[in-house]
């Protein structure tokens, strides 16, 4: 085991993480780390615990045991100000979760103003900059309900980026989108990855994982089954469970005999 006081080599490190909902153990001891600038994709069948793992990283779910260490700070420690720690972690949800009673611009400004205490001017400048980046700047004054799913998700990405996070979490960001809108969101994520953002992505988009991820983690039944370079895990998986999953995902008409 690495000592907790080790220099900040990892953006985020997870040690022996367990999470149970009542009698159901969803995570059964997860160990892994993401280095700064790395893009890690988490794949696996539904119910494998990958979304729960992601939600444990910013403590939307309280882990039952184990440690989450963000930039050398142990978030799971009792004395840590969790609100302060979360500012360093951006999160993008499957259902976008934009604030429907605020305009696009306000959505991206509100946390900057209320949490980071940035002034109106600066918050607006940062918001417009990030909306520009995700290519929805023209929709600044619209309400989320007036936007397509793809546009809403890109606003959600801008909202998270405006907080200047050290790590971005994506929880199946394209699963709720119409197929023709998936490409725009993935393009934005790819751009982010190229700019060196540290990203942890739960996804079913195998092409994205193969092309963009530095590492792919395959989870099944609450444990990490395989963790390695994208080309290896997707291209030449070592474990039978990984192979079987990939066969089903890449060729949905295929059935295992």
């Amino acid at each position, binding site marked *: 085991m690495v000592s907790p006081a080790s220099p900040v080599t990892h953006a985020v490190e997870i040690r022996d993480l367990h999470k149970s909902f009542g009698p159901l153990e969803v995570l059964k001891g997860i160990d892994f780390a993401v280095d700064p600038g790395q893009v890690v994709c988490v794949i696996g069948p539904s119910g494998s615990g990958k979304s729960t793992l992601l939600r444990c990283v*910013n403590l*939307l779910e309280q882990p039952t045991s184990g440690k989450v260490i963000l930039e050398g700070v142990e978030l799971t420690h009792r004395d840590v100000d969790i*609100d*302060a720690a*979360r*500012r360093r*972690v*951006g*999160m993008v*949800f499957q*259902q976008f*979760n*934009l*604030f*429907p*009673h605020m305009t696009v611009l306000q959505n991206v400004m*509100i*946390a900057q103003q*209320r*949490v*980071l205490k940035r002034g109106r001017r600066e918050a607006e400048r940062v918001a417009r900059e990030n909306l520009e980046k995700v290519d929805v700047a023209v929709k600044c004054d619209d309400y989320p*309900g007036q936007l397509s799913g793809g546009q809403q998700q890109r606003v*959600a990405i801008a*909202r*998270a980026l405006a*907080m200047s996070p050290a790590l971005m979490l994506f929880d199946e960001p394209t699963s709720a989108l119409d197929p023709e809108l998936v490409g725009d969101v993935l393009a934005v994520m790819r751009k982010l990855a190229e700019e060196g953002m540290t990203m942890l992505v739960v996804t079913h988009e195998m092409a994205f994982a193969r092309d963009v991820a530095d590492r792919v983690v395959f989870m099944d039944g609450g444990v990490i089954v395989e963790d390695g370079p994208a080309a290896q895990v997707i291209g030449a998986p070592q474990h039978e469970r990984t192979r079987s999953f990939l066969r089903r995902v890449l060729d949905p008409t295929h059935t295992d005999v």
Partner: protein
Amino acid sequence: MTDKSTAAEPSAPAGAPPGGTGLSPRQKQRISRTLQYVVLVAVVVFLLLRIEWGSLAANFAKPEVAAETWPDVFTVALKNTIIYSVGGFVFAFLFGLLFALMRLSSVAPYRWISIAYIEIFRGLPALLIFLLILFLPLALPGFEVPGGTYGQGILGLTIVGSAYMAETLRAGLQAVPRGQMEAARSLGMSHTRAMVTIVIPQAVRIVIPPTTNQFVSLLKDSSLVLFLGVTGDYVELTKFGNDLASTYANATPILVVGVTYLLVTIPLGYLANRLEKRQGKGR
């Protein structure tokens, strides 16, 4: 109505006599409708002949008495009705929000207090609460409801209204999707900050239509101020109408007051409907 249900039955083909009556569905429908008109006309004719219209008008709509209500019915009575009900509404909303938040609190005793309050005061007749308020000075010596007569009326309406408002607001708070709180927390907002900035504004928007209806109901309940024994400048519509009706031994003031209520309640009802429809579209 009966003819509608017949019309909705296309089963029997035209001309085929079902049940051996020899009548087609269309003929039956015509007979049924004719019968309904006959009954209506009979009732109207009976009422026209039986009621003494002169005496009715003299008691319920006497122009001279109606003129006596002017202008106090608006400048005093309606004004006070609005003071009582708007005051009651504002406090009922604030306390209702407090009780709704307590109801959803993670601190168990807060939940118990809130549940007890809501169950007790939703289950009691509003009149009973007003009668109890009358006895407050006796029960708590030295205690005086702030704001005098207005204060007492507003207190009564607040107690009644906040119990209903708490339930409405709780439903509104729970109707805001969980993801909203999660998104706010993931941006680093504290629980309180997320509630105030993200959840409560959305909940309030959701409950605007039912809340408008609750205001109408409080406006009607403000008539119970009658039982507080108010006088002079503090009378609201019902007390005002009742007093004048006694003075002139004539019901016309009550009718005038009734129309005045409707001038406020019917537009508000329409407003609530429109808000509800607009919200249905927006979501």
